[in-house]
Each structure stands twice: as C-alpha cells, then as structure tokens.
C-alpha cells in the first residue's frame, strides 16, 4: 500500500500513456541517430595524441583535463564549490544531526580502521598515476571522499565537518590553487592556464593533488550537510 502523501501519485491515464509513447519514440529517435552516425565522425583524438608530448603528462585524458581544457576543470571545481556554498546557505540554523556512537555499533569503526588507510594510500597512488595511465584527481577524490564518509558514519570524525576549519580550507583549496596557477601562467607565458615549458608536469601534479583533496572534502561535506536540511520538519507531528 502506497501512501500518496509520501509517494505522490504518478501521472496515469491517457496523459501517462501518451508520455510513455513519447519517451519510447524519443529512445527510438536517439538510437536511430546513433546508428546513422557517419563512419568517421569528427574527433579530436588525433590532435590530442599528436600534441601529447607538449602537455607534460602521458595520459591523454589527464592532458585534456588539466592542460588542453584546463579551463573546463577550473569551472568544474567552481561549480562544486558553488554547490557546497549553496548547501551551507540552506542549512543555516539547522541543528546538527546527532553523532553516531561507536559504542552502539562497533562494526563501522573497525571497518574504517582497516579500509581508510588503504583508501587514502590508493587515492595518493591514483592521483600520481593520472599522469601516466587511467586515474587522476576525480577517481582519487571519490575514493578519499568515500573514506571520509566512512569515518563520519563510524563516528570517528565529528559530524559537522565544516565546523572543522581545516576541512573548510580543503574544500576551497583546489579553486585557490587553480586560480593561482592560471594567474602565474598568465604572467609566465602570457596566456591564461598555460604552463612554462618544461615545468608542466610538476604544475599538473600539484593541481591534481589539490583537486583530489578538494573533491574528497566536498563530497564528504555534502554527505554530512545535506541530511541536516531535513531537520526542521522531521516528523509528521510538525504543527503545520
């Protein structure tokens, strides 16, 4: 039995059937567009491979993310920061969720003590490996972010991560490093987000490390702060 107050009623009847038909037709249209793509579609892969040795890294994906299209990555980390700041603004005044007690459930704590050091080690490796093969700041950030979430779920870290100044600093670190690198590149080479010849790989590793740190901190922060937004009207006994 579904409670309509909780689930809401989906659209049914003639309108529902029409929408289902339209969605099926859209799937067919997209599929036929994919099937009729030209045999040799436009691709920038050749250009990426041809100029890879000028990028300072050996992985073509990292070269695109942090050299050829570093501007996109700069905007991406700005979008992440904007999402976190918006969540911070929404939760102003919301009471913090109670911290889970390690005495009540010792399993997450034991698991965290096993897994978190390995996850952090793997994150450092992934950040470094991004210069040469599959890997990079995003995968590393997701892994370390997961480790932070485990620490929070086990009650080892305090639940209000953002109250910890250092984690707040980690949230903004990547954008700060990116803007600093963009401006430094502008002064050194005359072009925004261009790197001095020969130093590109060191710059990229530094920016990747900052990215991994910030992505981990942002993911963990969102994990803690978003559930707190439900607090003011948690139960049905809310007077309104």
């Amino acid at each position, binding site marked *: 039995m579904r409670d309509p107050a909780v689930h*809401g009623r989906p659209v049914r009847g003639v309108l529902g059937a029409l929408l289902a038909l339209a969605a099926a037709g859209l799937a067919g249209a997209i599929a036929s567009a994919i099937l009729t793509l030209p045999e040799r579609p436009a691709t920038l892969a050749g250009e990426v491979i041809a100029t890879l040795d000028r990028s300072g890294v050996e992985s073509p994906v990292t070269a695109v993310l942090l050299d050829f299209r570093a501007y996109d990555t700069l905007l991406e980390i700005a979008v992440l920061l904007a999402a976190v700041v918006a969540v911070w603004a929404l939760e102003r005044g919301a009471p913090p969720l109670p911290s889970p007690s390690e005495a009540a459930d010792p399993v997450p704590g034991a698991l965290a003590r096993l897994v978190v050091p390995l996850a952090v080690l793997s994150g450092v490796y992934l950040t470094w490996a991004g210069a040469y093969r599959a890997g990079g700041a995003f995968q590393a950030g997701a892994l370390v972010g997961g480790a932070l979430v485990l620490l929070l779920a086990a009650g080892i870290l305090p639940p209000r991560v953002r109250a910890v100044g250092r984690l707040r600093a980690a949230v903004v670190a990547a954008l700060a490093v990116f803007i600093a690198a963009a401006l430094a590149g502008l002064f050194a080479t005359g072009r925004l987000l261009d790197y001095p010849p020969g130093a590109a790989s060191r710059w990229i590793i530094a920016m990747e490390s900052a990215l991994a740190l910030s992505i981990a901190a942002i993911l963990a922060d*969102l994990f803690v702060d978003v559930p707190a937004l439900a607090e003011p009207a948690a139960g049905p006994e809310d007077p309104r």
Partner: protein
Amino acid sequence: MTPPLLYALAGAGLFALGLHAFLIRRHLFWKVLAFNVMGSGVFLVLIGAPASPPGGGADPVPQALVLTGIVVAVSATALAIGLALRVAAKTGHPHLPEDADA
C-alpha cells in the same frame, strides 16, 4: 554490434526511461533520481558513440567531458536533494506546489 555501440544504445534507452520517470513522478526524490538516470544515459552515449581514434583506445576528449560531468552531477544531485528536503521540511510534503494537490 560492437560493445561501444551497445553502450550508446543503452544510453539512449536510459535517457528516455529517465525522462519518462521525470515527467510522470511527482515526488521530488523520484525526479532527482530520474534526472540522474537521464544524465547516465547521456554519459553512456558520449562514451559509446564516438569511433575509436586511429591510435586505438577510447577518444580522450569525450572521456574527459564525461569525467567532469560525473563529478558535477554528483554535487548537483546533493544540492537538489538538499533543496527537496528543504521543500519537504517547509511545506510538509515532498512535491512542487503545482503538484501538491494532485
């Protein structure tokens, strides 16, 4: 049928499924979930549709695009769920005002 083509076609199906759920469901959490399924469909098409570059392997440009997109989608989803929770906390029901009386 090559595996990348299969991914791209599955992406087309996922996008349409997600759009359908997005249109017929009124609960905001369903809508956020449906939007994520649509996004996953777009990522699959972007990865599966381009032909392999001459050197072999996958095309790095769409890969980089999708990698960026996944991270943005995760944070945008967190913000969307936060907004939905706020709507539920303020109004007592997890729907948009125009869907609440339906």
